[in-house]
C-alpha cells in the first residue's frame, strides 16, 4: 500500500495545517488552575480540560519547556480552539499569544481578583462560543505530505524488536518517500544503537546536535551512579525477555526503518520540513507523547510488547503488538495485530499495510482503543526542581 492511496480527511486550520480531531481544550497554565479548567469542561459540552501537575515557580530551561509544551498543545492542529486559565494574567497571556499565532480562536482568563467561580463563568461563556464554532467545522481531504505524526514504543520486549517496531519502520520508510513528516525520540533508549542514528543524520550540523543531546542525557543517567536495571530496561521489559539497554535500543531503533534524520529538535519544538526528525526526549510514554503533541503531531504509532496502555487527550495513539500473550490478555488496548510475523504468517510489508489501514481509519475519525478507553495522559516533562 502506498501512502498516496490513503484517503485522508481532516480539519484545515487557519495556519494551513490539518488536524484529525476537533477538540476545544481548557488549558490550565498551572496546577492550581486545574479546578477552574475542570469546572468549565464540566459545564460546556464538547470541551476538554487538560489538568497537569506543574507551572509554578519553574525557571530557566525548565520553565521554557513548560511554556513550549502548553502553547504547543494549544497550537496542535487537532485543537479547534483553546481557553487558557492561569492564576495570574502574565504567564496566561504568554501562552495565549503563542497559540494565537496559528490564527485559531483562543482566549485567556486569570483567577486572581475574580476567584474560581467568576473565572469559570467568564471562561464558560467563551468556551460555549468556541464549542459551537468547532461544531460547525467540516472535514476536508488532505494530502499525505501534510501529515505530521510521531512514534514511541513502550513496555517493549523481544517481540517489539522482531515485529511491531519494524512494522512502524516500514510504514515510516513509505511515508518518508511520500513527503510526510515524522518524529521519533527517546534519547537514552538509543544507547547501543546510537551509531545507527548518527549514520542517518543528513548533515554534520544535525549529527553534532544529535551527539550533544545524546551526550548530555547519557551524562545525566551515568552521573547518578546507580544501576539502572529495573528502570531501564524496566521491570516490564525484563519480564518480557529484554536483558540490556543495548538489546532494548536495537528493538526501539527498528521504528525508524531506513529513514534519514532531517533534524535534531529540542523537546516540544515543531519540525520544519518533511521527513523524519529526532526529538530529544524521555522514554516515559506519557511524557514523550505529550511532547510529540506539543510539536504538532496529530497521530501516534505506539508499538508495545508487554502492553503499555498509554493514551493522550489530543493525539490519538495507535497500539501495535506482536506479542500473542498481550493480544490474548489485553485485546481491548490493541489496534493493530502483527503477531503473524512471529509465526512467519505475515511479512513485514503485510504488517505495514495493516498498520496503514488503521492509520487511515484513525485519521478519518475512528477512535483508537486508547481514545475509547479514555486514556488521557497529559504529562509535562520536568527538567529539574522548581525554585
Amino acid at each position, binding site marked *: 500500500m502506498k501512502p498516496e492511496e490513503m484517503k485522508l480527511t481532516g480539519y484545515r486550520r487557519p495556519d494551513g495545517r490539518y488536524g484529525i480531531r476537533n477538540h476545544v481544550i481548557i488549558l490550565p497554565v498551572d496546577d492550581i488552575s486545574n479546578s477552574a479548567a475542570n469546572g468549565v469542561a464540566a459545564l460546556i459540552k464538547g470541551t476538554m480540560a487538560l489538568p497537569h501537575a506543574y507551572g509554578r515557580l519553574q525557571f530557566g530551561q525548565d520553565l521554557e519547556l513548560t511554556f513550549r509544551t502548553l502553547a504547543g498543545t494549544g497550537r496542535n492542529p487537532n485543537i479547534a480552539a483553546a481557553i487558557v486559565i492561569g492564576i495570574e494574567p502574565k504567564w496566561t497571556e504568554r501562552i495565549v499569544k503563542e497559540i494565537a499565532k496559528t490564527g485559531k480562536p483562543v482566549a485567556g482568563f486569570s483567577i486572581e481578583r475574580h476567584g474560581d467561580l467568576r473565572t469559570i463563568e467568564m471562561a464558560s461563556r467563551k468556551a460555549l462560543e468556541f464549542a459551537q464554532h468547532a461544531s460547525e467545522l467540516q472535514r476536508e481531504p488532505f494530502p499525505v505530505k501534510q501529515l505530521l505524526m510521531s512514534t514511541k514504543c513502550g513496555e517493549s520486549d*523481544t*517481540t517489539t524488536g522482531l515485529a511491531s517496531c519494524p512494522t512502524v519502520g516500514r510504514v515510516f520508510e513509505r511515508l518518508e518517500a511520500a513527503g510526510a513528516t515524522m518524529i521519533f525520540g527517546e534519547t537514552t533508549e538509543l544507547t*547501543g544503537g546510537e551509531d545507527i542514528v548518527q549514520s542517518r543524520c543528513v548533515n554534520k550540523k544535525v549529527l553534532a546536535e544529535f551527539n550533544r543531546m545524546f551526550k548530555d542525557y547519557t551524562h545525566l543517567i*551515568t552521573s547518578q*551512579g546507580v544501576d539502572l536495571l529495573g528502570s531501564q530496561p524496566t521491570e516490564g521489559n*525484563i519480564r518480557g525477555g529484554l*536483558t540490556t539497554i543495548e538489546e532494548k535500543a536495537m528493538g526501539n531503533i527498528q521504528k525508524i526503518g531506513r529513514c534519514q534524520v532531517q533534524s535534531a529538535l529540542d523537546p516540544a519544538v515543531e519540525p520544519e520540513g518533511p521527513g523524519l526528525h529526532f526529538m530529544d526526549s524521555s522514554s516515559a510514554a506519557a511524557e514523550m507523547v505529550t511532547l510529540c503533541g506539543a510539536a504538532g503531531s496529530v497521530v501516534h504509532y505506539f508499538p508495545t510488547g508487554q502492553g503499555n496502555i498509554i493514551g493522550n487527550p489530543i493525539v490519538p495513539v495507535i497500539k501495535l503488538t506482536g506479542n500473542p500473550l498481550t493480544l490474548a490478555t489485553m485485546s481491548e488496548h490493541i489496534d493493530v495485530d502483527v503477531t503473524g*510475523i*512471529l509465526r512467519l504468517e505475515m511479512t513485514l510489508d503485510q504488517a505495514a499495510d495493516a498498520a496503514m489501514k488503521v492509520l487511515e481509519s484513525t485519521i478519518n475519525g475512528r477512535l483508537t482503543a486508547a481514545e475509547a478507553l479514555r486514556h488521557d495522559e497529559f504529562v509535562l516533562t520536568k527538567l529539574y526542581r522548581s525554585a
Partner: protein
Amino acid sequence: MKHGILMHESEDDVGVAVEDLKKGSRIGAVTLEGKGVGAVKLLHDVPLGHKVAMRDLPKDKPVIKYGRRVGKAVAAIAKGEHVHVHNVKTLRWTVL
C-alpha cells in the same frame, strides 16, 4: 508453527522463544526471512519472548543479537540455556 525460536540474524548467539518452551525439548530455529538455523535442545524452560543460547558462550564473551553486541556473558553459558539478566549484563552504563 514449525519453529519455536526466531532469530534476527542467522549468526546471532541467541534466539527468541516465540512460545513457552519446555526444558528437554528439541526446538527448531528460523530467521525472520524463514531460513532454518538448525535446532537446539533446551536446558531450561524458556518463556515466550525470552532468549535461548544458540551456541556455547564462554564467560566475558560479547553476546551477539541483531548481528551486534547487546551485552556480555557474566557466566559461561551452554547451548540451550536460558539467557537473561542472570548471565548477561550490559556493556554500557557500567556502574563501578
